[in-house]
């Protein structure tokens, strides 16, 4: 029950727990059962599912929050609910991505003359690129979890229709986008360059033959890459083709993403009028377009619109498909 009341202020949460504890103690004092365990079981059975009524209390609290329209309380509740799923998503993704980095560099890192320091350097240098992936995905997942929780609050999910919540969600998405974009443009090319240098040093230490150094597109920012492609510094047909496609299609596709996914989902959510089948058809139709768009991008930084609207869309989809219908309270 305590775990499910985390959205409430600590004093209020303690008061509710204290009251229920008092109820249990009172029941035990009056119980005529010979067995203490039996008496405890009896009172717990009569009290019912603690998660369910903790959710009801939280829902009432949110109902009040929406009525009073307190920005600070809105944000506290939202971030409190978001922190645990965000932390868990970051942890799991971080472990998986680190394992992936080890896998990618396994041929170099497991050579006989590779020191622990070299291995750690390569792993540390991969952190910026990992952050670029973790921030938007963990934000999307945790926002989705929060929304699902709000929808599962049985009596008062009005919080979902509060503009103050939507503005904050958008701000979180925007901040995640700007941060990711900045890291991807400034830090990641540098760390990629350092990784290449470290890997070449490891190969040298192991007396392995090195090919002449050639700067990889991953070692420079996307702006510089565009400019280099424009000047014809990269004679790479694949990159050229991607650049052309990106120039031709990124803007209209961004518009499509916005109109058919972001805005449409927003309207559906706001009016509370949605049909799963309809939504599925729209996503099934737009999905291949998104994949096409992502596949032909020259750099991850062009994911900008996807971060903004994708986060919102994933959250929304998650909520819609995990939504439970209202049920009559079992009085």
């Amino acid at each position: 029950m305590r775990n499910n009341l985390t959205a409430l202020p600590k004093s209020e949460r303690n008061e509710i727990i204290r009251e229920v504890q008092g109820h249990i103690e009172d029941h035990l004092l009056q119980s005529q059962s010979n067995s203490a365990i039996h008496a405890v079981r009896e009172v717990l059975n009569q009290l019912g599912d603690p998660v369910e009524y903790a959710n009801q209390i939280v829902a009432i609290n949110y109902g009040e929050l929406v009525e009073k329209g307190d920005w600070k309380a809105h944000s506290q509740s939202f971030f409190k609910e978001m922190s645990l799923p965000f932390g868990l998503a970051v942890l799991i993704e971080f472990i998986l991505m680190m394992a992936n980095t080890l896998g990618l560099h396994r041929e170099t890192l497991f050579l006989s003359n590779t020191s622990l320091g070299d291995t750690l350097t390569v792993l540390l240098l991969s952190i910026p690129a990992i952050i670029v992936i973790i921030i938007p995905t963990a934000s999307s997942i945790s926002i989705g979890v929060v929304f699902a929780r709000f929808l599962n609050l049985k009596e008062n999910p009005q919080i979902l229709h509060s503009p103050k919540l939507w503005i904050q969600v958008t701000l979180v998405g925007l901040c995640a986008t700007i941060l990711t974009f900045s890291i991807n443009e400034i830090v990641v090319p540098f760390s990629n360059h350092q990784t290449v240098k470290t890997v070449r040093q490891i190969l040298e230490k192991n007396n392995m033959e090195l090919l002449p150094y050639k700067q990889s597109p991953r070692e420079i920012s996307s702006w510089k890459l565009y400019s280099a492609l424009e000047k014809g510094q990269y004679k790479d047909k694949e990159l050229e083709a991607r650049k052309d496609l990106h120039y031709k299609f990124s803007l209209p596709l961004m518009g499509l993403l916005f109109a058919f996914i972001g805005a449409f989902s927003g309207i559906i959510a706001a009016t509370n009028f949605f049909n799963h089948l309809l939504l599925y058809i729209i996503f099934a139709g737009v999905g291949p377009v998104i994949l096409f768009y992502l596949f032909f991008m020259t750099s991850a930084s062009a994911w900008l619109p996807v971060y903004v609207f994708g986060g919102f869309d994933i959250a929304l989809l998650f909520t819609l498909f995990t939504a439970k219908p209202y049920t009559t309270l079992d009085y």
Partner: protein
Amino acid sequence: MHSKELKKWIAQIRKGSLDLCILALINKQTQYSFELIQNLKKIDDLIVTEGTIYPLLNRLQSAGLIQSFWAESTSGPPRKYYSMTDKGKELLEQMIGEWNKFSRALDQILEWSQVDGSEGTENDQPIPIQVEKQPHSSSKV
């Protein structure tokens, strides 16, 4: 056969009337939650799950209909007592009036429907132009 529907219906009635019962009991006497639940339990079938009372008390308090305070007890743990606010008293009065009106109307309908158990004369009855479709029946009409 109809137990599921009956249970649903009873749950709806309870849900709709529990606020009134709680307000009426607290109006009669300031009391703590366990005491309130015991009083509700004295009336058969009015409450099944005790835990549902706490969110309800929380809601009534949030709406400003009741207020609470903690007090030490000589015979048990400290208790959270609930008492009525002026707003709650006013609403309770209105709720009782509405309940009485509703209850009288319902009684009238039930009395009328059971006057003699007859369904009127044969001429009063509408003549079906199609055979009535049975619920959950796969047979064609």
